């Protein structure tokens, strides 16, 4: 088992420009079953001489029974692409695009509520399940190892850092989920923790939080009340000054609850094992797993 993506994943990639094409290729090379591409000006062509390209998502889904959509379109068109994929009935939509206007996301979130589709992202690295060689995103596949630790994170490269710390210690991952660094996104920590909680293969969880918002506090509540699996967590941005955006649109200290210290306290209180620095994640997880 695993969460969100696995051997049954049939991938549709929308936005096959330079960047999208590069990553679609890497996903396929890792082992992902990409069944369709979408590009309005290239109908009838094939991606890498193998995957049919369609003009519209609707056509692509109808023809290929794709069940996961991956979005690389420019930020200005990302909200529209998300809705196109949701309206085409894709149950899982993963949006990599960075810089989607927040008021677009206000509308997208409200629109997809109750649609039956789940959105991951935007501004995220995607999801990978090493055990089934299923990579839907931009993460470097090679650092991952099949295993039993679920990883969820607001950040891209910090996730790779954590995965690297795990893999170099021989600790494999069930699935690694990047939920993205934007203040409004499709899936929260709690959503992913629910999935990990229900996943038989996941025995422990790494939660990588950062300053800004209160999603880590919500996660802490879930950990305390409903998660019977050990959690290792770190919160980055302890050294960030208040009121300044740290790269991610969501990473900004706007009040006490946005502080790293507040989030760490909540997670510790909830029983999570806190890695004092982001360099200690692997170490702490190793200790936790060793009992």
């Amino acid at each position, binding site marked *: 088992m695993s969460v969100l993506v696995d051997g049954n994943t049939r991938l549709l990639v929308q936005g096959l420009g330079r960047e999208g094409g590069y990553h679609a290729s890497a996903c396929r090379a890792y082992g992902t079953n990409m069944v369709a591409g979408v590009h309005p000006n290239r109908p009838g062509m094939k991606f890498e001489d193998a995957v049919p390209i369609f003009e519209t998502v609707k056509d692509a889904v109808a023809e290929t029974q794709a069940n996961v959509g991956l979005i690389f379109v420019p930020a200005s068109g990302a909200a529209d692409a998300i809705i196109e994929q949701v309206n085409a009935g894709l149950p899982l939509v993963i949006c990599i695009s960075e810089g989607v206007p927040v008021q677009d996301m206000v*509308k997208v979130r409200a629109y997809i509520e109750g649609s039956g589709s789940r959105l991951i992202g935007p501004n995220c690295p995607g999801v990978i399940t090493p055990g089934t060689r299923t990579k839907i995103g931009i993460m470097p596949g090679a650092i991952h190892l099949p295993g039993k630790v679920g990883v969820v994170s607001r*950040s*891209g490269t910090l996730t790779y*850092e954590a995965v690297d*710390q795990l893999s170099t210690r021989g600790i494999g991952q069930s699935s690694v989920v990047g939920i993205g660094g934007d203040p409004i996104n499709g899936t929260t920590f709690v959503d992913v923790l629910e999935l990990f909680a229900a996943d038989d293969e996941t025995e422990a969880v790494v939660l990588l939080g950062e300053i800004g918002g209160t999603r880590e506090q919500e996660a802490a509540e879930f950990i305390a009340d409903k998660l019977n699996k050990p959690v290792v967590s*770190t919160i*980055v941005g*302890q050294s960030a000054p208040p009121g300044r955006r740290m790269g991610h649109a969501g990473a900004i200290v706007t009040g006490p609850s946005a502080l790293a210290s507040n989030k760490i306290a909540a997670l510790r209180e909830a029983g999570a094992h806190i890695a004092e*620095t*982001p360099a200690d994640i692997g170490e702490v997880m190793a200790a936790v797993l060793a009992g």
Partner: protein
Amino acid sequence: MKLHEYQAREILARFGVPVPNATYAETPEAARAAAESFGGKAVVKAQVHAGGRGLAGGVKLVSSADEAADVAKSLIGTNLVTHQTGPTGAPVNGVLVAELTDIKTELYISILVDAELRTPFIMASQAGGMDIEKVAEETPEKLIRLATDPVHGLWPYQARDIAIALGIPPKSVRSASALIMNLFKLFTETDATLVEINPLVVTGDDQVIALDSKIDIEDDALFRHPDLEKLADPAQDGELERRAKDAGLAYVKLDDGSVGCMVNGAGLAMATMDITLRAGTNPANFLDVGGGAQEDKIAEAFKIIVDDPDVKAVLVNIFGGILRCDIAARGVVQGATESGSLLPIVAVMRGTNAEEGLKILADSNINVTFADNLSGAAPTVARVLAGGN
């Protein structure tokens, strides 16, 4: 993107929000003429991208046109230091000369997107002129809060409810409701991240006017607002911030830091800063070179870091993914060479093409020390800073 008060005032007026009569002046003569047109009595306000202008001497009441000119002269061309600007302050390139308003009541209203509720959120209070955070803390019962519908937006009855809750006089409730509707329209149509009217005033004759205002526009949405993009005033940012923005880099200068940080990815950048702090040294900046950076951009990032006079060492931490380590390494070498910087560099590289990147750095003639991983990086920096190697 921040706007100056005079720019915000014009946008408010365009959206039908009443504002005081005022003129933007870039010379003492223009300020004099403006004050004269208001009969001499006016308020002269330094235009900088920072709050706290009043306490910092940037807002002055004048009672004659000559005095307006004098105040303008004393402000224009200087840097105004407020509690929000940092020690060098922000350059004053002009002043807003505004007619005096007969204020009966000072109120507060603001709109922002609430990330937890995922929708535009309105806050209002009868305590105008005060920081809303202070109101929220001290008298939360006085805070009026409304989460708007994410798809439809604000309904007129909700604007009226707010006007009534603000204690607007009955005969002005209609115009105040219209003002609030227009503020909301402005917020959504300009992709603002913040619209704040503080104070919103009721005048002696029961007009409702936006006396002072703050509008921030979302950088990520500027692609659909070319007219607003033109209102950017990069001079207000520090020199290094301006260069970073031009290069498309996410960069924040920190006070009292000595370790320049160059990282790919915002989360890893924060992690790197945190690690630096934990090792007993202070990070000098946040810098995320982003995913698709090429060598020139990396080089410019490096130069921005070392052009900060506080920086004594540079920590390069790259986890190759979209950005390949070899490109990052070449960029660093190029930056070090072009800047002529002799500062010590500590480098960690993992992920895509890491070995190649490390080799490029090792083979160059820059002053570099290597660390194997994140936990090794910070002590190495501390050691390097202490003069070791």
